[in-house]
C-alpha cells in the first residue's frame, strides 16, 4: 500500500466539475510531480488530499487513514506548503516556526530543537529573529516550507512553492526539496514549471481540465512522443497547412502539426534533416517566418502533444 492512495476523486462546485475521477498512488519515499496548466485542477486535488474540503466522491487514504473519516489523524502525517505565503507577517521567522510547531503538537525542547534544525535546512539561521514582513519573497517562501516540515511529515505536499521568486531562492528551495526527499520524505510537487518537476520528480502525473491525461516516469512519458523534438516556427502571416503537409519530402502527418495563432509546432524525429525543406515549404505556403527553434523532447512536448496546449497557457 502506498503512502497516498487516491481513488476516483471527483469534486463538483455546483455545475462545474473541477476534478474528474482522478486516481493515483504514491509510494513511500517517492517524489511525485503534478503538472498541469493553471486551472487544470491541481490545487483542488491537493486541497482535497490535505483535507481542506471533502471530495464529492472518491476516497483519499494517507498512510492507510481515511482523510474524510479521520481528517485530523490523516493530516498529522502531512506537511502542506500552500501556494501563497501562509505566515504571520508581524512575527519573526522563529516565532512563526514555533507557532506552527505548536499547531502540530510539538512542545518543549523537541520543538526548540526542530525549529533550530529547520532554520538550518531553510538557511535562515542568521535572520531568524527578524520579522517576516521584512523578508524578500524568496525568504518568505523558505519560511513557508519550514513551517510545513517541522513535524517531520511522512508526506510533504508543495503547491507551486517557487512562484514569483528570484533564481537564487528558487535554486535553494529545489535543493532543499531534493535533500528532504533523499532523506526519505515523500514529496508531491505541483508546478507548471516542467523543468522543476523534471529535476525533482521520479514519477509525474499530468492534469488538464480536471483529469489525469497521463502519468508515469519521465522516460515513460517521453516515450509517448516517440523521442521526437519540436520545431517551433513563428511568423507574421499564417501558412496554408495543407500545402505544407502535401510536400512529400517532409513526410509530416497532420497530427504532428499544431498551428496556434502565429506559431507552428512540428513534432519530428530528425529536425535537422527536414529543417531547410520545412522552411522552404512553409514560405511557399504563404508564411513570413520570423523565428525558428528546435526543442529537445521534454515534458512540455508531452503536454503539448497530448493537449495541443502549452503548460503555461
Amino acid at each position, binding site marked *: 500500500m502506498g503512502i497516498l492512495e487516491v481513488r476516483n476523486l471527483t469534486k463538483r462546485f455546483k455545475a462545474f466539475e473541477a476534478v474528474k475521477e482522478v486516481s493515483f498512488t504514491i509510494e513511500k519515499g517517492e517524489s511525485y510531480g503534478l503538472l498541469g496548466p493553471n486551472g487544470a485542477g491541481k490545487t483542488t486535488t491537493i486541497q482535497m488530499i490535505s483535507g*481542506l474540503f471533502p471530495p464529492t466522491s472518491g476516497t483519499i487514504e494517507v498512510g492507510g487513514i481515511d482523510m474524510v473519516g479521520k481528517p485530523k489523524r490523516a493530516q498529522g502525517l*502531512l506537511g*502542506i506548503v500552500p501556494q*501563497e505565503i*501562509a505566515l*504571520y507577517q508581524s512575527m519573526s521567522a522563529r516565532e512563526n516556526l514555533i507557532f*506552527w510547531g505548536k499547531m502540530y503538537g510539538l512542545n518543549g525542547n523537541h520543538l526548540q530543537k526542530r525549529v533550530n534544525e529547520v532554520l538550518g535546512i531553510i538557511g535562515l539561521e542568521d535572520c531568524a529573529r527578524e520579522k517576516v514582513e521584512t523578508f524578500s519573497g524568496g525568504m518568505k517562501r523558505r519560511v513557508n516550507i519550514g513551517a510545513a516540515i517541522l513535524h517531520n511529515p511522512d508526506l510533504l505536499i508543495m503547491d507551486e512553492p517557487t512562484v514569483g521568486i528570484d533564481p537564487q531562492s528558487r535554486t535553494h528551495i529545489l535543493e532543499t526539496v531534493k535533500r528532504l526527499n533523499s532523506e526519505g520524505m515523500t514529496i508531491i510537487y505541483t508546478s507548471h514549471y516542467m523543468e522543476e518537476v523534471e529535476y525533482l520528480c521520479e514519477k509525474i502525473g499530468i492534469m488538464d481540465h480536471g483529469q489525469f491525461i497521463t502519468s508515469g516516469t519521465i522516460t515513460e512519458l517521453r516515450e509517448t512522443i516517440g523521442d521526437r523534438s519540436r520545431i517551433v516556427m513563428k511568423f507574421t502571416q499564417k501558412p496554408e497547412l495543407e500545402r505544407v503537409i502535401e510536400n512529400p519530402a517532409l513526410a509530416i502527418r497532420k497530427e504532428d502539426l499544431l498551428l496556434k495563432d502565429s506559431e507552428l509546432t512540428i513534432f519530428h524525429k530528425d529536425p535537422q534533416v527536414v529543417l531547410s525543406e520545412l522552411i522552404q515549404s512553409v514560405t511557399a505556403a504563404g508564411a513570413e517566418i520570423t523565428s525558428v527553434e528546435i526543442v529537445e523532447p521534454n515534458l512540455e512536448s508531452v503536454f503539448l502533444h497530448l493537449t495541443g496546449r502549452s503548460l503555461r497557457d
Partner: protein
Amino acid sequence: MGFWWLALKDALIIGRDRKALLTLVFMPILLIGILGAAFGNMLGDEEPESIKKFSVAVVNLDEGEFGGVLQKDVLMEGLPELVSAQSMTEKEMEEQLKQQKMSVGIIIPSDFTNHIISGDEAEVKIVSIPSASIQSMIVENIVSQFTQSAAVNVIGRQMALPANTGADSDVPAVAVQEESFKMMKEEAVSQDQQPVSSFQYYAAGMGVMFLMMTVITGVSAMIEEKEQDVYNRLLVSQLTNYEYLFGKFIGLLFMSSVQFMIIILGTSALYGVHWGESFAGVTLLGIAFVFSVSGLGVLLGSLVKTEKTFNAVGMLVTQIMAAVGGSMVPLYAFPDWLNELVKILPNALALQTFLELMSGGRLSNVLAESGALFAIGFGSLAIAAMVLSRRRRALHA
C-alpha cells in the same frame, strides 16, 4: 492546547500593532479626560478643572437656528469654566489665530441647521494653532456631542409629532435643544445614591465603547485571517474547528480584559475616577461584559465571511450600539422607557450597571446583570459553534 497558542499569537500581533495599541489604550483614557472635563458642568460636577480654560473664535455662517444655539448656548455660555468663545468674521478669526490670541477657531457653515434637520452629517470646520491640539479635540468633541444630541432631538420631535400636523413640525429647533440640555443637567440618582460625576460617567461610557471596539478590531483581524491562506493552513494543522473558535474567544477575552484593567487603573490614577465601593462587583461586571462582547465577537467572526462586509456593517452597528447605549450622549438625556429597552444590548446593560456601582451599588446589585451578560457570551459561543458545525456538515454533504 492549540487554542491557547492561537490566543497568545493574536495577543502578540495586537501588542505589536502600535496604531491599534494607541487606539485601544490611550484613546479611551484621553477621551474620558476630555469628555469628563468638557461636560462636567452639565452633569453638575464640582470637580477641579484639569484642562485650563481656552479661547475659541466662532464664525457662525449658519442660516438656521442650530448654529446660533451652538455658538451662544454651548460655546459662549454653556462651558464658562472651560471655553471662552467670541463671535467674529472669518478674516478676524484668521488674524486672531495668527497672532495666537485665540487657540481654536470654528466655522459653522451656512447649511449647518439644514444638515442636522435632514439627518445628514453636519460638518463644522475647526482650525487651531499648533500648540492647541488637545483644545481642538475638545471643541471637536463638543461639536460632535452637540450635533448628535441635536439630531436625536430632531428625530424624536419628528416621531412624536402626528404626521398630519404639518404646522407643528415647524416648532423652533432651539426649544428642542434647550430641552435637551436641561435633561443633561439632571442627575439621575435617587436620594440614597451618590451622584455620578462626568468623569465617572465617561470612564464607564467610553470604557464600554472602547471594549466593544477592541472586540471589533479582533473580529476584523479574525475575518481578515479567514480570507488569507494562513487560515487554511490552520485548518489542515492539528487544530480543530472548536479549538480555533475557543482560541479566538480566549484571545479577545484576554485583550479586552487587559484593556478594561488599564481603563480602570488609568482613570483612577489620572482623573481620580471612583468605580464604586464594591471591587468584586466591578471585577465581576467587567469580566461578564468582556465575556459577552467576546462571545458576540466570535459569533460575528464566524458568521461574516469577508472583511469588507464586516467593516461596512460592524463599525456602524458598534456606533449605533454605543450611541443608544449611552456612551456618547448621557443616558439621562433619554426617557426611562428607552433606557430600560436598550438593556437588551450588553453595552447599555453594562454601562447602566457600572453607573449603579458608582452610585454606591454592591456586588448583590450586579449579580443578575452579570449573569445575563455571561449568558449572552455563552449563548453566542454556542451559536458560533453550531454555525461552524453546520457549515462543516454542509461542506461534507
